[in-house]
Protein backbone atom coordinates (compact mmCIF):
# COMPACT_ATOMS: atom_id res chain seq x y z
CA UNK A 1 0.00 0.00 0.00
CA UNK A 2 1.28 3.42 -0.85
CA UNK A 3 0.40 4.98 2.47
CA UNK A 4 2.26 2.38 4.41
CA UNK A 5 5.68 4.04 4.41
CA UNK A 6 4.02 7.24 5.59
CA UNK A 7 2.22 5.62 8.47
CA UNK A 8 4.91 5.66 11.21
CA UNK A 9 5.66 9.33 10.47
CA UNK A 10 2.07 10.36 10.86
CA UNK A 11 1.77 8.20 13.93
CA UNK A 12 4.67 9.99 15.65
CA UNK A 13 3.27 13.41 14.82
CA UNK A 14 -0.08 12.31 16.11
CA UNK A 15 1.38 10.97 19.34
CA UNK A 16 3.31 14.22 19.86
CA UNK A 17 0.21 16.24 19.09
CA UNK A 18 -1.84 14.41 21.66
CA UNK A 19 0.72 14.67 24.46
CA UNK A 20 -0.57 16.66 27.44
CA UNK A 21 -3.84 17.36 25.63
CA UNK A 22 -7.26 16.68 27.05
CA UNK A 23 -8.82 13.97 24.96
CA UNK A 24 -12.29 14.82 23.72
CA UNK A 25 -13.91 11.59 24.95
CA UNK A 26 -12.54 12.06 28.47
CA UNK A 27 -13.70 15.66 28.60
CA UNK A 28 -17.13 14.85 27.16
CA UNK A 29 -17.52 11.85 29.45
CA UNK A 30 -16.70 13.84 32.59
CA UNK A 31 -18.88 16.76 31.53
CA UNK A 32 -21.77 14.40 30.82
CA UNK A 33 -21.33 12.93 34.30
CA UNK A 34 -21.44 16.42 35.79
CA UNK A 35 -24.60 17.36 33.89
CA UNK A 36 -26.20 14.10 34.91
CA UNK A 37 -25.29 14.73 38.54
CA UNK A 38 -26.70 18.26 38.40
CA UNK A 39 -29.99 17.12 36.93
CA UNK A 40 -30.24 14.22 39.38
CA UNK A 41 -29.47 16.50 42.30
CA UNK A 42 -31.97 19.10 41.10
CA UNK A 43 -34.79 16.56 40.83
CA UNK A 44 -34.22 14.59 44.02
CA UNK A 45 -35.19 15.81 47.47
CA UNK A 46 -38.06 16.34 49.85
CA UNK A 47 -40.20 17.58 46.99
CA UNK A 48 -39.46 15.50 43.90
CA UNK A 49 -39.35 17.41 40.66
CA UNK A 50 -40.06 15.86 37.25
CA UNK A 51 -36.86 15.28 35.24
CA UNK A 52 -38.27 16.58 31.98
CA UNK A 53 -39.55 19.75 33.58
CA UNK A 54 -36.19 20.39 35.27
CA UNK A 55 -34.26 19.82 32.04
CA UNK A 56 -36.64 22.15 30.21
CA UNK A 57 -36.19 24.77 32.91
CA UNK A 58 -32.39 24.43 32.91
CA UNK A 59 -32.04 24.55 29.12
CA UNK A 60 -34.60 27.34 28.95
CA UNK A 61 -32.53 29.23 31.52
CA UNK A 62 -29.71 29.58 28.99
CA UNK A 63 -30.04 33.03 27.43
CA UNK A 64 -31.32 32.92 23.88
CA UNK A 65 -33.10 29.59 24.22
CA UNK A 66 -36.88 29.62 24.52
CA UNK A 67 -38.65 26.48 25.71
CA UNK A 68 -42.15 25.69 26.92
CA UNK A 69 -41.98 25.28 30.68
CA UNK A 70 -43.89 22.43 32.32
CA UNK A 71 -43.03 23.12 35.97
CA UNK A 72 -45.54 24.90 38.13
CA UNK A 73 -44.46 28.21 39.53
CA UNK A 74 -44.08 26.61 42.96
CA UNK A 75 -41.84 23.96 41.43
CA UNK A 76 -39.92 26.68 39.62
CA UNK A 77 -39.35 28.41 42.94
CA UNK A 78 -38.12 25.19 44.57
CA UNK A 79 -35.80 24.59 41.63
CA UNK A 80 -34.28 28.06 41.34
CA UNK A 81 -34.28 29.14 44.97
CA UNK A 82 -33.55 25.91 46.86
CA UNK A 83 -32.45 22.97 44.76
CA UNK A 84 -30.23 24.60 42.18
CA UNK A 85 -28.28 26.92 44.48
CA UNK A 86 -27.44 23.94 46.64
CA UNK A 87 -26.54 21.73 43.69
CA UNK A 88 -24.31 24.37 42.15
CA UNK A 89 -22.71 25.06 45.53
CA UNK A 90 -21.98 21.36 45.95
CA UNK A 91 -20.46 21.29 42.47
CA UNK A 92 -18.32 24.37 43.11
CA UNK A 93 -17.09 23.09 46.47
CA UNK A 94 -16.30 19.71 44.93
CA UNK A 95 -14.43 21.37 42.06
CA UNK A 96 -12.49 23.60 44.48
CA UNK A 97 -11.40 20.81 46.79
CA UNK A 98 -10.50 18.49 43.94
CA UNK A 99 -8.41 21.11 42.11
CA UNK A 100 -6.73 22.14 45.35
CA UNK A 101 -6.02 18.48 46.10
CA UNK A 102 -4.44 18.02 42.68
CA UNK A 103 -2.34 21.15 43.26
CA UNK A 104 -1.13 19.97 46.67
CA UNK A 105 -0.32 16.51 45.31
CA UNK A 106 1.79 18.15 42.62
CA UNK A 107 3.55 20.50 45.01
CA UNK A 108 4.47 17.77 47.46
CA UNK A 109 5.04 15.20 44.73
CA UNK A 110 2.94 12.93 46.83
CA UNK A 111 -0.29 11.43 45.55
CA UNK A 112 -1.60 11.13 49.09
CA UNK A 113 -1.55 14.86 49.80
CA UNK A 114 -4.89 16.57 50.30
CA UNK A 115 -5.98 20.20 50.52
CA UNK A 116 -6.12 20.16 54.33
CA UNK A 117 -2.46 19.20 54.61
CA UNK A 118 -1.06 22.54 55.74
CA UNK A 119 -3.63 23.19 58.43
CA UNK A 120 -6.54 24.63 56.44
CA UNK A 121 -9.01 22.38 58.23
CA UNK A 122 -7.78 23.06 61.73
CA UNK A 123 -7.53 26.78 61.07
CA UNK A 124 -11.01 26.98 59.58
CA UNK A 125 -12.35 24.83 62.41
CA UNK A 126 -10.94 27.14 65.03
CA UNK A 127 -12.37 30.14 63.18
CA UNK A 128 -15.77 28.46 63.05
CA UNK A 129 -15.72 27.62 66.76
CA UNK A 130 -14.82 31.17 67.63
CA UNK A 131 -17.52 32.60 65.36
CA UNK A 132 -20.34 30.17 66.23
CA UNK A 133 -19.56 29.67 69.88
CA UNK A 134 -17.87 32.82 71.09
CA UNK A 135 -19.43 35.43 68.85
CA UNK A 136 -16.25 36.39 67.04
CA UNK A 137 -17.53 38.73 64.37
CA UNK A 138 -15.25 39.38 61.44
CA UNK A 139 -18.17 39.86 59.04
CA UNK A 140 -17.24 42.03 56.16
CA UNK A 141 -19.67 43.46 53.62
CA UNK A 142 -21.94 40.67 52.43
CA UNK A 143 -19.76 37.98 54.03
CA UNK A 144 -21.22 36.69 57.28
CA UNK A 145 -19.26 36.14 60.47
CA UNK A 146 -18.90 32.36 60.17
CA UNK A 147 -17.49 32.06 56.64
CA UNK A 148 -15.20 35.01 57.24
CA UNK A 149 -13.84 33.55 60.48
CA UNK A 150 -13.33 30.13 58.85
CA UNK A 151 -11.59 31.71 55.87
CA UNK A 152 -9.31 33.83 58.04
CA UNK A 153 -8.51 30.86 60.29
CA UNK A 154 -7.64 28.65 57.32
CA UNK A 155 -5.39 31.23 55.69
CA UNK A 156 -3.71 32.00 59.02
CA UNK A 157 -2.93 28.33 59.67
CA UNK A 158 -1.34 27.85 56.24
CA UNK A 159 0.54 31.13 56.53
CA UNK A 160 1.78 29.91 59.91
CA UNK A 161 2.99 26.66 58.37
CA UNK A 162 4.81 28.52 55.62
CA UNK A 163 6.42 30.92 58.12
CA UNK A 164 7.51 28.09 60.44
CA UNK A 165 9.14 26.40 57.44
CA UNK A 166 10.76 29.80 56.77
CA UNK A 167 9.15 30.00 53.36
CA UNK A 168 11.06 26.91 52.40
CA UNK A 169 9.27 26.09 49.19
CA UNK A 170 12.51 24.47 48.05
CA UNK A 171 12.05 21.80 50.63
CA UNK A 172 8.46 20.53 50.66
CA UNK A 173 9.19 18.02 53.42
CA UNK A 174 9.86 20.81 55.92
CA UNK A 175 6.69 22.55 54.82
CA UNK A 176 4.75 19.35 55.34
CA UNK A 177 6.08 18.90 58.87
CA UNK A 178 5.36 22.53 59.67
CA UNK A 179 1.81 21.89 58.46
CA UNK A 180 1.48 18.94 60.82
CA UNK A 181 2.69 21.04 63.75
CA UNK A 182 0.45 23.96 62.91
CA UNK A 183 -2.59 21.72 62.40
CA UNK A 184 -1.99 20.11 65.80
CA UNK A 185 -1.76 23.51 67.44
CA UNK A 186 -4.96 24.81 65.87
CA UNK A 187 -6.84 21.54 66.50
CA UNK A 188 -5.88 21.59 70.14
CA UNK A 189 -7.05 25.17 70.50
CA UNK A 190 -10.26 24.30 68.70
CA UNK A 191 -10.91 21.28 70.93
CA UNK A 192 -10.23 23.31 74.04
CA UNK A 193 -12.63 26.00 72.85
CA UNK A 194 -15.28 23.34 72.14
CA UNK A 195 -15.11 22.05 75.70
CA UNK A 196 -15.93 25.52 76.95
CA UNK A 197 -19.18 25.59 74.95
CA UNK A 198 -22.64 24.43 76.00
CA UNK A 199 -24.12 21.40 74.30
CA UNK A 200 -26.37 23.13 71.78
CA UNK A 201 -23.62 25.34 70.47
CA UNK A 202 -20.99 22.64 70.39
CA UNK A 203 -23.38 20.42 68.43
CA UNK A 204 -23.86 23.23 65.95
CA UNK A 205 -20.11 23.58 65.59
CA UNK A 206 -19.63 19.84 65.19
CA UNK A 207 -22.19 19.61 62.44
CA UNK A 208 -20.37 22.43 60.66
CA UNK A 209 -17.07 20.61 61.08
CA UNK A 210 -18.44 17.57 59.29
CA UNK A 211 -19.36 19.65 56.32
CA UNK A 212 -22.75 20.89 55.37
CA UNK A 213 -24.11 22.45 52.25
CA UNK A 214 -27.33 23.83 53.72
CA UNK A 215 -27.92 27.04 51.91
CA UNK A 216 -30.70 29.41 51.15
CA UNK A 217 -30.39 31.25 47.87
CA UNK A 218 -27.36 32.04 45.80
CA UNK A 219 -25.27 33.88 48.40
CA UNK A 220 -22.60 31.23 49.04
CA UNK A 221 -22.36 30.47 45.32
CA UNK A 222 -21.55 34.07 44.45
CA UNK A 223 -19.10 34.11 47.33
CA UNK A 224 -17.22 31.06 46.10
CA UNK A 225 -17.43 31.55 42.34
CA UNK A 226 -14.73 34.24 42.00
CA UNK A 227 -12.26 32.06 43.89
CA UNK A 228 -13.03 29.04 41.77
CA UNK A 229 -12.54 31.01 38.57
CA UNK A 230 -9.42 32.89 39.65
CA UNK A 231 -7.57 30.23 41.63
CA UNK A 232 -8.73 27.58 39.16
CA UNK A 233 -7.18 29.54 36.29
CA UNK A 234 -3.94 29.98 38.23
CA UNK A 235 -3.80 26.27 39.04
CA UNK A 236 -4.51 25.30 35.46
CA UNK A 237 -1.79 27.64 34.18
CA UNK A 238 0.67 26.10 36.61
CA UNK A 239 -0.26 22.52 35.89
CA UNK A 240 2.65 22.25 33.47
CA UNK A 241 4.99 23.45 36.20
CA UNK A 242 3.76 20.56 38.31
CA UNK A 243 4.58 18.20 35.44
CA UNK A 244 8.11 19.60 35.25
CA UNK A 245 8.47 19.30 39.04
CA UNK A 246 7.90 15.57 38.66
CA UNK A 247 11.43 15.42 37.23
CA UNK A 248 12.82 16.63 40.54
CA UNK A 249 13.90 20.10 41.60
CA UNK A 250 17.36 20.01 40.07
CA UNK A 251 16.16 19.03 36.65
CA UNK A 252 13.29 21.48 36.84
CA UNK A 253 15.74 24.27 37.56
CA UNK A 254 18.10 23.15 34.82
CA UNK A 255 15.10 23.29 32.48
CA UNK A 256 14.48 26.91 33.48
CA UNK A 257 11.75 26.57 36.08
CA UNK A 258 11.90 27.99 39.59
CA UNK A 259 10.47 25.17 41.74
CA UNK A 260 10.15 27.37 44.82
CA UNK A 261 8.20 30.04 42.96
CA UNK A 262 5.93 27.52 41.27
CA UNK A 263 5.21 25.84 44.60
CA UNK A 264 4.49 29.17 46.26
CA UNK A 265 1.97 30.13 43.57
CA UNK A 266 0.25 26.74 43.58
CA UNK A 267 0.07 26.53 47.38
CA UNK A 268 -1.32 30.07 47.53
CA UNK A 269 -3.98 29.38 44.91
CA UNK A 270 -4.90 25.98 46.36
CA UNK A 271 -5.09 27.42 49.88
CA UNK A 272 -7.32 30.33 48.86
CA UNK A 273 -9.70 28.08 46.96
CA UNK A 274 -9.81 25.57 49.83
CA UNK A 275 -10.33 28.24 52.45
CA UNK A 276 -13.13 29.76 50.39
CA UNK A 277 -14.79 26.36 49.94
CA UNK A 278 -14.42 25.47 53.61
CA UNK A 279 -15.84 28.82 54.68
CA UNK A 280 -19.15 28.12 52.91
CA UNK A 281 -19.38 24.36 53.39
CA UNK A 282 -17.39 23.28 56.42
CA UNK A 283 -14.86 20.50 56.28
CA UNK A 284 -15.70 17.99 53.59
CA UNK A 285 -13.22 15.16 53.73
CA UNK A 286 -11.62 13.06 51.01
CA UNK A 287 -12.97 14.83 47.89
CA UNK A 288 -9.63 16.56 47.40
CA UNK A 289 -7.73 13.35 47.96
CA UNK A 290 -9.84 10.89 46.02
CA UNK A 291 -10.79 12.85 42.90
CA UNK A 292 -7.29 13.39 41.48
CA UNK A 293 -6.71 9.65 41.92
CA UNK A 294 -9.82 8.78 39.97
CA UNK A 295 -8.66 11.12 37.24
CA UNK A 296 -5.22 9.50 37.22
CA UNK A 297 -6.82 6.14 36.69
CA UNK A 298 -8.74 7.61 33.76
CA UNK A 299 -6.23 9.79 31.89
CA UNK A 300 -2.78 9.25 33.38
CA UNK A 301 -0.38 11.31 35.44
CA UNK A 302 -0.06 14.69 33.71
CA UNK A 303 -1.27 17.51 35.92
CA UNK A 304 -2.42 19.36 32.85
CA UNK A 305 -5.16 16.77 32.56
CA UNK A 306 -5.52 16.07 36.27
CA UNK A 307 -6.26 19.67 37.31
CA UNK A 308 -9.11 20.45 34.89
CA UNK A 309 -10.65 16.99 34.96
CA UNK A 310 -10.44 16.90 38.77
CA UNK A 311 -12.51 20.08 38.79
CA UNK A 312 -15.21 18.51 36.62
CA UNK A 313 -15.23 15.14 38.37
CA UNK A 314 -14.99 16.67 41.85
CA UNK A 315 -18.02 18.77 41.04
CA UNK A 316 -19.94 15.74 39.79
CA UNK A 317 -18.87 13.68 42.80
CA UNK A 318 -19.96 16.15 45.47
CA UNK A 319 -23.21 17.01 43.68
CA UNK A 320 -24.03 13.30 43.60
CA UNK A 321 -23.01 12.64 47.19
CA UNK A 322 -25.10 15.59 48.31
CA UNK A 323 -28.21 13.83 46.99
CA UNK A 324 -27.49 11.12 49.54
CA UNK A 325 -26.95 13.71 52.28
CA UNK A 326 -30.40 15.16 51.62
CA UNK A 327 -32.38 11.98 51.04
CA UNK A 328 -30.86 9.06 52.98
CA UNK A 329 -32.30 10.02 56.38
CA UNK A 330 -34.98 12.44 55.14
CA UNK A 331 -36.51 14.55 56.48
CA UNK A 332 -33.31 14.95 58.52
CA UNK A 333 -30.03 15.59 56.79
CA UNK A 334 -26.66 13.83 56.97
CA UNK A 335 -23.54 15.99 57.01
CA UNK A 336 -22.20 15.60 53.48
CA UNK A 337 -18.67 15.18 54.86
CA UNK A 338 -19.77 11.98 56.56
CA UNK A 339 -20.83 10.46 53.24
CA UNK A 340 -17.73 11.60 51.35
CA UNK A 341 -15.65 10.02 54.12
CA UNK A 342 -17.71 6.82 53.94
CA UNK A 343 -17.04 6.65 50.20
CA UNK A 344 -13.54 8.13 50.31
CA UNK A 345 -11.97 6.20 53.18
CA UNK A 346 -12.50 2.74 51.66
CA UNK A 347 -11.17 4.04 48.35
CA UNK A 348 -8.12 5.39 50.15
CA UNK A 349 -7.64 1.98 51.74
CA UNK A 350 -7.75 0.29 48.35
CA UNK A 351 -5.16 2.73 46.99
CA UNK A 352 -2.87 2.05 49.95
CA UNK A 353 -3.39 -1.68 49.65
CA UNK A 354 -2.53 -1.65 45.97
CA UNK A 355 0.58 0.48 46.55
CA UNK A 356 1.80 -2.04 49.08
CA UNK A 357 1.16 -4.93 46.74
CA UNK A 358 2.66 -3.11 43.76
CA UNK A 359 6.00 -2.48 45.45
Amino acid sequence: MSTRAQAPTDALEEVADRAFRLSVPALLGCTALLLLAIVASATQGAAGLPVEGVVRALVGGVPGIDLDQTLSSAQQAVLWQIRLPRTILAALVGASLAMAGAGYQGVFRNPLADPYLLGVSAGAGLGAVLALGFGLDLSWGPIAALPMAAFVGAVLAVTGSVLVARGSFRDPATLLLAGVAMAALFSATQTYALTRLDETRSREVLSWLFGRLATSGWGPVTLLLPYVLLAGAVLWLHARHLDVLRLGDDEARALGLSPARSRLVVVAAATLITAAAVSVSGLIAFVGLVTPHLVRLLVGHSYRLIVPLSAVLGAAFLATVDIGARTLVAPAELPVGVITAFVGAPFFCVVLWRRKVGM
Partner: protein
Amino acid sequence: MSEQPAHPNPSHALRTRDVRVAFDGTVVVAGVDLDLRTGEWLGLIGPNGSGKSTFLRSLVRLVPRTGTVELGDGSQPGPTDISLMPQSPELPPGMSVVEYVLLGRTAHLGWLSLESREDRRIATDVLRRLGLGDFARREVRSLSGGEAQRIVIARALVQQSPVLLLDEPTSALDVGHQVEVLELVDELRRHEGLTVVAAMHDLGLAARYADRLLLLEHGSPAALGAPDEVLTADLLSRVYGHPVRIHHVDGHLVVLPAPRTPTSGHRKVGDGHQKALSRSATEEVS
Protein backbone atom coordinates in the same frame (compact mmCIF):
# COMPACT_ATOMS: atom_id res chain seq x y z
CA MET B 1 33.37 44.66 10.93
CA SER B 2 34.33 42.66 7.93
CA GLU B 3 36.22 40.08 9.90
CA GLN B 4 34.63 36.64 9.79
CA PRO B 5 34.18 34.78 13.04
CA ALA B 6 36.67 32.01 13.55
CA HIS B 7 33.91 29.45 13.94
CA PRO B 8 30.26 29.28 12.90
CA ASN B 9 28.67 30.41 16.13
CA PRO B 10 30.93 32.00 18.71
CA SER B 11 28.13 32.12 21.27
CA HIS B 12 28.40 28.35 21.60
CA ALA B 13 31.78 28.78 23.23
CA LEU B 14 31.97 28.80 27.00
CA ARG B 15 34.33 30.64 29.30
CA THR B 16 34.71 30.22 33.03
CA ARG B 17 36.89 32.27 35.31
CA ASP B 18 37.68 31.41 38.90
CA VAL B 19 34.55 29.28 39.41
CA ARG B 20 34.38 28.36 43.09
CA VAL B 21 31.85 26.39 45.11
CA ALA B 22 31.89 25.92 48.86
CA PHE B 23 29.39 24.10 51.06
CA ASP B 24 29.40 25.33 54.66
CA GLY B 25 32.96 26.49 54.34
CA THR B 26 34.21 23.29 52.70
CA VAL B 27 35.69 24.13 49.33
CA VAL B 28 34.41 21.72 46.68
CA VAL B 29 35.42 23.56 43.53
CA ALA B 30 38.43 25.81 43.96
CA GLY B 31 38.83 28.09 40.99
CA VAL B 32 38.33 26.58 37.54
CA ASP B 33 39.28 28.60 34.46
CA LEU B 34 38.20 27.21 31.11
CA ASP B 35 38.01 28.39 27.53
CA LEU B 36 35.94 26.06 25.40
CA ARG B 37 35.69 26.43 21.66
CA THR B 38 32.44 25.86 19.84
CA GLY B 39 32.11 22.17 19.12
CA GLU B 40 34.80 21.18 21.57
CA TRP B 41 34.42 18.17 23.86
CA LEU B 42 35.96 18.59 27.27
CA GLY B 43 36.28 15.49 29.43
CA LEU B 44 36.07 16.12 33.15
CA ILE B 45 37.97 13.48 35.10
CA GLY B 46 39.10 12.98 38.65
CA PRO B 47 38.48 10.69 41.60
CA ASN B 48 35.18 10.50 43.47
CA GLY B 49 34.64 13.69 45.39
CA SER B 50 37.01 15.73 43.25
CA GLY B 51 34.20 18.12 42.35
CA LYS B 52 33.29 17.01 38.82
CA SER B 53 29.53 16.87 39.37
CA THR B 54 29.52 19.95 41.54
CA PHE B 55 31.43 21.91 38.90
CA LEU B 56 28.92 20.90 36.22
CA ARG B 57 25.99 21.71 38.48
CA SER B 58 27.49 25.07 39.36
CA LEU B 59 27.58 26.00 35.67
CA VAL B 60 23.76 25.84 35.55
CA ARG B 61 23.48 27.33 39.04
CA LEU B 62 22.10 24.26 40.74
CA VAL B 63 24.62 25.04 43.46
CA PRO B 64 25.65 28.55 44.46
CA ARG B 65 28.97 29.55 42.96
CA THR B 66 31.22 32.54 42.63
CA GLY B 67 33.27 33.51 39.62
CA THR B 68 32.29 34.10 36.02
CA VAL B 69 30.58 31.83 33.54
CA GLU B 70 29.83 33.35 30.18
CA LEU B 71 29.18 32.40 26.60
CA GLY B 72 31.49 33.28 23.75
CA ASP B 73 29.59 36.50 23.11
CA GLY B 74 30.02 37.56 26.73
CA SER B 75 26.39 36.94 27.72
CA GLN B 76 25.27 35.11 30.83
CA PRO B 77 24.09 31.61 29.98
CA GLY B 78 20.53 30.56 30.82
CA PRO B 79 18.58 27.32 30.36
CA THR B 80 18.31 27.97 26.62
CA ASP B 81 22.12 28.05 26.45
CA ILE B 82 23.24 25.20 28.68
CA SER B 83 21.49 21.91 29.26
CA LEU B 84 22.51 19.36 31.87
CA MET B 85 22.09 15.63 31.57
CA PRO B 86 21.94 14.49 35.20
CA GLN B 87 23.77 11.48 36.53
CA SER B 88 20.64 9.62 37.57
CA PRO B 89 17.68 11.22 35.81
CA GLU B 90 14.32 10.84 37.46
CA LEU B 91 11.82 8.96 35.32
CA PRO B 92 8.34 9.74 36.65
CA PRO B 93 5.81 6.90 36.61
CA GLY B 94 3.16 7.12 33.93
CA MET B 95 5.02 9.68 31.82
CA SER B 96 5.42 8.84 28.14
CA VAL B 97 8.61 9.34 26.17
CA VAL B 98 7.13 12.12 24.06
CA GLU B 99 5.86 13.94 27.15
CA TYR B 100 9.24 13.60 28.81
CA VAL B 101 11.01 15.00 25.78
CA LEU B 102 8.50 17.85 25.41
CA LEU B 103 9.34 18.99 28.96
CA GLY B 104 12.71 19.97 27.50
CA ARG B 105 10.94 22.93 25.87
CA THR B 106 10.15 24.49 29.25
CA ALA B 107 12.52 27.43 28.89
CA HIS B 108 11.11 28.26 25.45
CA LEU B 109 7.44 28.47 26.38
CA GLY B 110 5.42 31.62 26.99
CA TRP B 111 3.48 32.45 30.15
CA LEU B 112 0.60 30.20 29.13
CA SER B 113 3.02 27.25 29.24
CA LEU B 114 1.56 25.72 26.12
CA GLU B 115 3.67 23.89 23.56
CA SER B 116 3.19 25.34 20.11
CA ARG B 117 3.07 23.33 16.92
CA GLU B 118 6.72 24.30 16.48
CA ASP B 119 7.65 22.93 19.91
CA ARG B 120 5.99 19.64 19.07
CA ARG B 121 7.70 19.51 15.68
CA ILE B 122 11.11 20.02 17.32
CA ALA B 123 10.34 17.14 19.68
CA THR B 124 9.30 14.78 16.89
CA ASP B 125 12.36 15.76 14.83
CA VAL B 126 14.69 14.93 17.70
CA LEU B 127 12.90 11.68 18.49
CA ARG B 128 13.16 10.62 14.89
CA ARG B 129 16.81 11.65 14.59
CA LEU B 130 17.70 9.56 17.65
CA GLY B 131 15.72 6.62 16.31
CA LEU B 132 13.20 6.93 19.11
CA GLY B 133 10.12 7.37 16.91
CA ASP B 134 8.69 4.01 17.85
CA PHE B 135 9.24 4.72 21.53
CA ALA B 136 7.16 7.92 21.66
CA ARG B 137 4.18 6.29 23.32
CA ARG B 138 6.16 4.10 25.72
CA GLU B 139 6.31 4.87 29.40
CA VAL B 140 9.72 6.20 30.41
CA ARG B 141 9.78 3.77 33.35
CA SER B 142 9.56 0.82 30.95
CA LEU B 143 12.77 1.71 29.10
CA SER B 144 16.10 -0.06 29.47
CA GLY B 145 19.13 1.84 30.74
CA GLY B 146 20.45 2.60 27.26
CA GLU B 147 17.06 3.70 25.96
CA ALA B 148 16.54 5.88 29.00
CA GLN B 149 19.86 7.65 28.40
CA ARG B 150 18.79 8.32 24.82
CA ILE B 151 15.55 9.98 25.84
CA VAL B 152 17.44 12.11 28.36
CA ILE B 153 19.74 13.16 25.52
CA ALA B 154 16.65 13.79 23.41
CA ARG B 155 15.24 16.05 26.11
CA ALA B 156 18.52 17.95 26.30
CA LEU B 157 18.54 18.38 22.51
CA VAL B 158 14.96 19.62 22.47
CA GLN B 159 16.13 22.28 24.89
CA GLN B 160 18.19 23.54 21.91
CA SER B 161 20.99 24.82 24.05
CA PRO B 162 24.37 24.86 22.33
CA VAL B 163 26.30 23.75 25.42
CA LEU B 164 25.63 20.25 26.69
CA LEU B 165 26.80 19.13 30.12
CA LEU B 166 26.88 15.39 30.77
CA ASP B 167 27.27 14.07 34.29
CA GLU B 168 28.55 10.48 34.11
CA PRO B 169 26.40 9.77 31.06
CA THR B 170 27.41 6.14 30.78
CA SER B 171 28.14 4.97 34.30
CA ALA B 172 25.00 2.83 34.44
CA LEU B 173 25.46 1.25 31.02
CA ASP B 174 27.20 -1.83 29.69
CA VAL B 175 30.13 -1.33 27.39
CA GLY B 176 28.11 -1.58 24.18
CA HIS B 177 25.58 1.00 25.26
CA GLN B 178 28.33 3.23 26.65
CA VAL B 179 29.90 3.51 23.22
CA GLU B 180 26.51 3.87 21.56
CA VAL B 181 25.51 6.83 23.74
CA LEU B 182 28.90 8.53 23.42
CA GLU B 183 28.92 8.03 19.64
CA LEU B 184 25.52 9.66 19.51
CA VAL B 185 26.70 12.68 21.49
CA ASP B 186 29.81 12.87 19.34
CA GLU B 187 27.80 12.81 16.13
CA LEU B 188 25.47 15.51 17.43
CA ARG B 189 28.42 17.63 18.44
CA ARG B 190 29.82 17.40 14.91
CA HIS B 191 26.52 18.09 13.16
CA GLU B 192 25.08 20.68 15.50
CA GLY B 193 28.30 22.27 16.67
CA LEU B 194 27.43 21.45 20.28
CA THR B 195 29.98 22.19 22.93
CA VAL B 196 30.20 19.25 25.30
CA VAL B 197 31.50 19.00 28.86
CA ALA B 198 31.29 15.43 30.14
CA ALA B 199 32.25 14.18 33.58
CA MET B 200 33.43 10.60 33.12
CA HIS B 201 34.83 7.85 35.25
CA ASP B 202 36.07 5.67 32.42
CA LEU B 203 39.36 7.33 31.53
CA GLY B 204 39.76 5.33 28.33
CA LEU B 205 36.40 6.48 26.99
CA ALA B 206 37.11 10.01 28.16
CA ALA B 207 40.37 9.97 26.23
CA ARG B 208 38.70 8.54 23.16
CA TYR B 209 35.97 11.17 22.81
CA ALA B 210 37.31 14.30 24.43
CA ASP B 211 39.45 16.89 22.65
CA ARG B 212 40.86 17.93 25.97
CA LEU B 213 40.72 16.58 29.51
CA LEU B 214 40.47 18.53 32.73
CA LEU B 215 41.73 16.53 35.69
CA LEU B 216 40.30 17.74 38.98
CA GLU B 217 41.93 17.06 42.32
CA HIS B 218 40.12 18.26 45.46
CA GLY B 219 38.23 20.74 43.30
CA SER B 220 41.33 22.27 41.71
CA PRO B 221 42.55 21.70 38.17
CA ALA B 222 45.51 19.31 38.37
CA ALA B 223 45.98 19.22 34.62
CA LEU B 224 44.29 20.50 31.49
CA GLY B 225 45.28 19.42 28.02
CA ALA B 226 45.11 16.79 25.29
CA PRO B 227 44.31 13.28 26.58
CA ASP B 228 47.83 11.95 26.14
CA GLU B 229 49.22 14.92 28.04
CA VAL B 230 46.88 14.50 30.98
CA LEU B 231 46.70 10.72 31.16
CA THR B 232 50.20 10.03 32.39
CA ALA B 233 50.91 7.28 34.84
CA ASP B 234 52.66 9.61 37.28
CA LEU B 235 49.92 12.19 37.40
CA LEU B 236 47.04 9.72 37.60
CA SER B 237 48.78 7.58 40.19
CA ARG B 238 49.26 10.64 42.36
CA VAL B 239 45.75 12.08 41.95
CA TYR B 240 43.86 8.78 42.20
CA GLY B 241 46.11 7.52 44.99
CA HIS B 242 46.68 4.20 43.27
CA PRO B 243 49.38 3.19 40.78
CA VAL B 244 48.05 2.95 37.23
CA ARG B 245 49.48 1.97 33.88
CA ILE B 246 48.78 3.63 30.58
CA HIS B 247 48.55 1.49 27.48
CA HIS B 248 48.06 2.26 23.84
CA VAL B 249 45.68 -0.09 22.10
CA ASP B 250 44.87 0.51 18.44
CA GLY B 251 45.58 4.19 18.87
CA HIS B 252 43.41 4.47 21.98
CA LEU B 253 44.64 5.15 25.48
CA VAL B 254 43.78 2.54 28.07
CA VAL B 255 44.28 3.16 31.77
CA LEU B 256 44.58 0.12 33.97
CA PRO B 257 45.19 -0.15 37.68
CA ALA B 258 48.55 -1.61 38.56
CA PRO B 259 49.10 -3.89 41.52
CA ARG B 260 50.11 -1.81 44.50
CA THR B 261 53.59 -2.73 45.64
CA PRO B 262 54.92 -1.76 49.05
CA THR B 263 57.51 0.59 47.61
CA SER B 264 55.73 2.20 44.70
CA GLY B 265 52.98 4.74 44.92
CA HIS B 266 54.10 6.33 41.66
CA ARG B 267 55.84 3.52 39.83
CA LYS B 268 56.69 3.69 36.16
CA VAL B 269 55.13 0.98 34.08
CA GLY B 270 57.38 -1.79 32.86
CA ASP B 271 57.42 -2.58 29.17
CA GLY B 272 57.06 -6.32 29.52
CA HIS B 273 53.83 -6.06 31.44
CA GLN B 274 52.49 -3.57 28.99
CA LYS B 275 52.47 -5.93 26.03
CA ALA B 276 50.76 -8.74 27.87
CA LEU B 277 48.15 -6.44 29.31
CA SER B 278 47.58 -4.72 26.01
CA ARG B 279 46.37 -7.87 24.42
CA SER B 280 43.69 -8.54 26.99
CA ALA B 281 42.77 -4.88 26.99
CA THR B 282 42.31 -4.97 23.25
CA GLU B 283 39.67 -7.61 23.57
CA GLU B 284 37.84 -5.60 26.14
CA VAL B 285 37.88 -2.29 24.38
CA SER B 286 37.08 -3.18 20.81
